[in-house]
């Protein structure tokens, strides 16, 4: 009788373990929803939280509703979608390549997609450059631009997969290969800049840093559709990813077709990267940061790692973008200075936060290994 109770306790402990993680993800989801509403209140035109919520629920044509639906909400939604896309793409790449340093940014997939998108805009007539200002590339045909970006992203990830399969290179060497791939596509982008006119050049430079300011509802919808399809695929395969964590042989022994899963997952992750980069430019480190932090919080179980990386990626990008577009006002408030308002592209903010934090995670990780 006592033994039966003990064994029931093990099951209870496991179910508790699962429910704690589910609760954490639910809390993150709730925090994200609240922040989404709150960040639509932040900006030069003051809107209260409740007015914002009312305008989101009822687009009645008022000034508040117009500002929120036309300017702020597309940007906030883009932050959530792009952050989720980068977060989940990083988590999946790290799993199927068995490389903790893998992400769209570190493997050069983001830069490849950026080059592809630039080719789509400038050479394949997928977009037009407006005026002489530095902020206006208009994507007229998102399918040409994202298709071209996807093609180049596939070239980058295909190179990585080929090298992994043929030479069995180390995880560190894979990342160095990513640096090389980034350089090659960076050079391609530089060549495009060299042969472009001045305004196009300025736009490409600006766009390389990643900026959510130019996205519109149509692009958000495309991003949402691709993200939903990819997330559904990844979530359906969550147990297969868990099996792959233990190694290819173990996963194959459990009935997982590891080669097919690896290729399908990397194609999906590349598609996510390509679409996100096409619309908002290169935003680095989210794909590294989000999965690493979630792993430390709740472990490697992909049931939680996949949604967790998406949610944390969204939260990081949401906060970073709001900080970026209000950084002048924040500095003025903090230092009581009289600086003019200015914005910083979110890609710069994520690199400022992500670079040092990632080094910290790496150092902490290696120290743990040494002590272990």
């Amino acid at each position, binding site marked *: 009788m006592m033994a039966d109770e003990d064994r029931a306790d093990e099951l209870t*402990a*496991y179910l508790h373990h699962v429910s704690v993680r589910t609760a954490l993800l639910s809390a993150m989801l709730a925090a994200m929803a609240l922040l989404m509403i709150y960040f639509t209140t932040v900006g030069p035109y003051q809107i209260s939280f409740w007015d914002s919520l009312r305008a989101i629920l009822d687009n009645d044509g008022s000034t508040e509703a117009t500002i929120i639906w036309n300017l702020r909400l597309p940007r906030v939604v883009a932050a959530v979608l792009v952050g989720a896309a980068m977060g989940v793409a990083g988590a999946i790449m790290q799993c199927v390549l068995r490389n903790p340093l893998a992400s769209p940014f570190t493997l050069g997939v983001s830069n490849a997609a950026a080059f592809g998108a630039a080719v789509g805009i400038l050479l394949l007539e997928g977009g037009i450059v407006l005026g002489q200002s530095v902020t206006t590339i208009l994507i007229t045909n998102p399918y040409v631009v994202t298709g071209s970006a996807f093609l180049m992203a596939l070239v980058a990830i295909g190179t990585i997969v080929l090298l992994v399969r043929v030479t069995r290179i180390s995880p560190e060497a894979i990342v160095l290969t990513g640096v090389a791939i980034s350089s090659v596509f960076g050079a391609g982008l530089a060549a495009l800049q060299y042969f472009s006119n001045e305004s196009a050049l300025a736009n490409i430079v600006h766009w390389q840093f990643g900026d959510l300011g130019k996205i519109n509802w149509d692009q958000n919808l495309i991003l949402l559709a691709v993200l939903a399809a990819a997330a559904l695929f990844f979530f359906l395969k969550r147990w*297969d990813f868990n099996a792959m*964590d*233990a190694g290819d042989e173990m996963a*194959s*022994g459990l*009935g997982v077709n590891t080669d097919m899963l690896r290729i399908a997952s990397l194609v999906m992750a590349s598609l996510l990267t390509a679409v996100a980069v096409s619309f908002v430019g290169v935003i680095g480190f989210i794909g590294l940061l989000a999965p690493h932090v979630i792993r430390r919080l709740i*472990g*490697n179980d992909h049931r939680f790692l996949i949604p967790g990386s998406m949610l944390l990626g969204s939260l990081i990008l949401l906060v970073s973008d709001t900080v970026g577009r209000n950084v002048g006002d924040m500095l003025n408030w903090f230092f009581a200075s009289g600086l003019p308002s200015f914005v910083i592209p979110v890609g710069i903010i994520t690199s400022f936060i992500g670079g040092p934090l990632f080094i910290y995670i790496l150092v902490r990780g290696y120290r743990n290994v040494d002590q272990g």
Partner: protein
Amino acid sequence: MSIRAEALSFGYNGRPVIEDIELEFHGDRIYAILGPNGAGKTTLLKCLCGLLRPDQGRVTVDGEDLSSLTRMEAARRICYVPQRFSATHTTVFDTVLIGRRPHMGWGPSRSDLELTRDALGAVGMESLSMRYVDEISGGELQRALIARAMVQGARTMVLDEPTSSLDLVNQHRTVRLLAEAVRSRGVCTVMTMHDINLAASCSDELVFMKDGRIAARGPPAIITSELIADVYGIEVDVIDHGGLPRALPAHTGPRAGTDQRRSV
């Protein structure tokens, strides 16, 4: 329950690793495959569980060609425990539960969870079920992997050197667990091993491999100094120990002639 290799041959890049293997394994028995490094033991195991497709010959499971089964169907019949396992930041419970993958639909059912709990109990790891596998010892990890193999529910377990990285206590604990699994569940267990004496004490039948071929097979009594000399190319003394043969290295090395027992 039987698994049969018929005229099995496999090679890497045109270099043959196993050639013309004819073997049959039955339920309720433990088979140990022995032989020097590079003899083709692991390759044979991978062919037996469908991870490698043989160049010639075939593997049948209860008379059915293994290559005609999907990977998932094969996983329901044959469980493979590789030598290398990457311990990640996952709980012991989840590590065992993933063994139910070939039977899962959308996710684990209540009975999958109960089977996992029972298997953890069978290998004496109840108290460690919520620990992370990257924080437990090698012996505990091996027990978790045996529990995982149990929950997979296959009638054949194929294990690649399950005792090679374990200390003496955990080696014996592992083979005892396997023996219990065979007795209680009637599964056929095929494993590669390096320790001839351990294999002789826990197996019903031994298969010696040399240069990709079967050198000898039979009960532990087939171990003789001539056989070991033929397969491994070293001199050993084979003595009787409680009815089982024990292979002891002959007088070699710097301590030869001073204390033979210490060199064993």
